[in-house]
């Protein structure tokens, strides 16, 4: 049984999520998507599956407060996979106020969901005109941007070029992983949104090594990203010890992280990624021709100590 790709659509109220969803579903792609929304009947689409969900977030029994998952999502995916015929994908539209972490974690934590689906990506829609203010006053808006694999910078027609560039720089400083796509009325090509392999270790993970760091200090922000780079190969034992300690002590504050790591003696790079304490790793990639064999690790989180992280990461280098 092949894993069904899942796309999570998030974004603050009024950013344009439903416009994007309608656009995806009305394109003549001939595919069959199940749509999970929080309020049944919020959108009416013929010939598609729309499933209502409650807002059920629960802690796993291991007692870790940051390892929360969405119970309704597990239940609904369990029901959808029993249907006859293969679904081409599942689209999850979260409410504008939802924290995306429990959604993403569900794909790591629940064995049935992990086996039968793969989280293709998190698409966050932001309103060019209002997102800067939202990032100041809303914790959820920050998390939505931090979690994105793709950010649709929407309503670009409502701001001037200078403002747009500064908004984009701000988003980039929060989340250097995400691909930013500028749109009006969410008119993005489907392949920018679906099938991106954003959370999928099996696809080549494109990192952005030259992310913008300017303007960080202008904001008194608790959520930031830290990008680490090490030219020397890493010692797997040292890295494992450092990283375990990091996620155990700071897991609650780590929203997302991704890394491509070159371990000494390994012919292929190792990819590490995760959400809070839940990390996943694999080495299914090969180094590309001419690619620098440096290790890169990017973390997005609250109150990150960039210097301490850089020192810890550098100390993982093989001697």
């Amino acid at each position, binding site marked *: 049984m092949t894993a069904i790709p899942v796309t999570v659509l998030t974004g603050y109220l009024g950013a344009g999520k439903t416009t994007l969803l309608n656009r995806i579903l009305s394109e003549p792609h001939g595919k069959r998507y199940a749509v999970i929304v929080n309020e*049944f009947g919020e959108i009416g689409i013929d010939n598609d599956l729309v499933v209502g969900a409650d807002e059920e977030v629960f802690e*796993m*029994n291991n007692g870790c407060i940051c390892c929360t998952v969405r119970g309704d999502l597990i239940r609904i995916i369990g029901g959808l996979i029993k249907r006859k015929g293969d679904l081409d994908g599942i689209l999850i539209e979260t409410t504008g106020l939802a924290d995306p972490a429990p959604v993403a974690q569900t794909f790591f934590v629940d*064995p049935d969901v992990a086996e039968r689906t793969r989280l293709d990506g998190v698409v966050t829609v932001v309103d060019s005109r209002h997102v800067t203010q939202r990032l100041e006053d809303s914790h959820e808006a920050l998390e939505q941007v931090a979690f994105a694999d793709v950010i649709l910078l929407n309503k670009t027609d409502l701001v001037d070029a200078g403002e747009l560039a500064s908004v984009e720089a701000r988003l980039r400083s929060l989340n250097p992983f995400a691909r930013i796509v500028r749109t009006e009325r969410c008119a993005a090509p489907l392949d920018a949104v679906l099938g991106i392999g954003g959370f999928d270790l099996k696809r080549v993970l494109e990192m952005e090594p030259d992310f913008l760091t300017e303007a960080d200090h202008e904001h008194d922000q608790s959520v930031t990203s830290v990008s680490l780079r090490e030219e020397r190969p890493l010692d797997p034992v040292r890295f494992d010890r450092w990283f375990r300690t990091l996620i155990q002590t700071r897991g609650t504050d780590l929203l997302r992280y991704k890394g491509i790591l070159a371990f000494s003696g390994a012919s292929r790079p190792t990819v590490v990624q995760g959400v809070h304490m839940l990390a996943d790793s694999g080495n299914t990639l090969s180094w590309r021709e001419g690619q620098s064999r440096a290790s890169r690790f990017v973390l997005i989180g609250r109150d990150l100590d960039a210097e301490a992280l850089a020192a810890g990461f550098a100390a993982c280098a093989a001697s």
Partner: protein
Amino acid sequence: MPERRWETGAWVVGLAVNRAGTHAAAALGDGTVRLLDLADPDGGPRALPVHAGACLTVAPDLDDRGFLTGGDDGRLCRIVPGSSGDAAVEPLAEVKGRWIEHVDAEPQAGLRAFAAGRQVTLLDRAGRPACDPLDHPSTVGGLAFAPKGKRLAVAHYGGVSLWWTKAPEAPVLLDWKGSHLGVLWHPAGTHVMTAMQEAELHGWRLKDKAHMRMSGYAAKVRSFAWAARGRWLATAGAEEVVCWPFFGGGPWDKAPLELPGPGSAVITAVAPHPTDPVLAAGRDDGMIFVTPLDGTAPLPLAGRGGSAVSALAWTGNGRSLLAGTEDGRLSWITPAR
């Protein structure tokens, strides 16, 4: 005729035998129910279109002949096999925009129960609501009538609500943190057991609400049932059929029986024999076997190959075993005696 099998092409979600033992019903992921006439060993399953989308649950109805099914079209249906190979499908209830994933019926109380989202509705013999809908703090993970139907247990996040079915006002909560996905009463009505989102079971002895927690499973416990009139609780989720003793002070401080199958693979379904001290079990590699509770060698009934066994049910007389798999194999097995 050890095994007859059919390829239905759709996930076998559940299997039930009616109370008269004349028919078996398989609920399928394509929304149909396959009805088997158990008096006709040469006949095949008859496909009835019942639900739009998937059929999510099936149980014997109150009377001798009928079945209840729930689907992701939000409908609760009653299926009545006819005398000449035909069958009637009667809608009993509909909840728009919700899935009906859990149903149960209890003849002595004359009640049926079904869950849609956080609500459970009780219906009387005529199919009318017996009371206001019963509300729960989160989506219902499972429900079961106590023997004789005086009480109803409803599993949800954070525990189980126990309702008195005659006067369902405020339920008693059996609390335990976590998500409870299935619920089972002891046949004597003395214990309530749940299967959890984590690979473990939880339970309560009702007289003092003493907790029991059974862990160590390799996978979620999707299937559990009482064997030997409640002496043992047989469970799936490990590479052996794990049976917990409910006698002599157990299951506290007692090790479970671990009954291995031929070779190793995770057990996905268990079905204790209704009269004899043996159990049937199905695995994630498609194999089905019977194993005696005394620990003597297991006997394969169907070989491995194909997908996980998703449903198992004995007929009331124990002469036939019905089995279904995720990829749609439907088997009618008559073990040699």
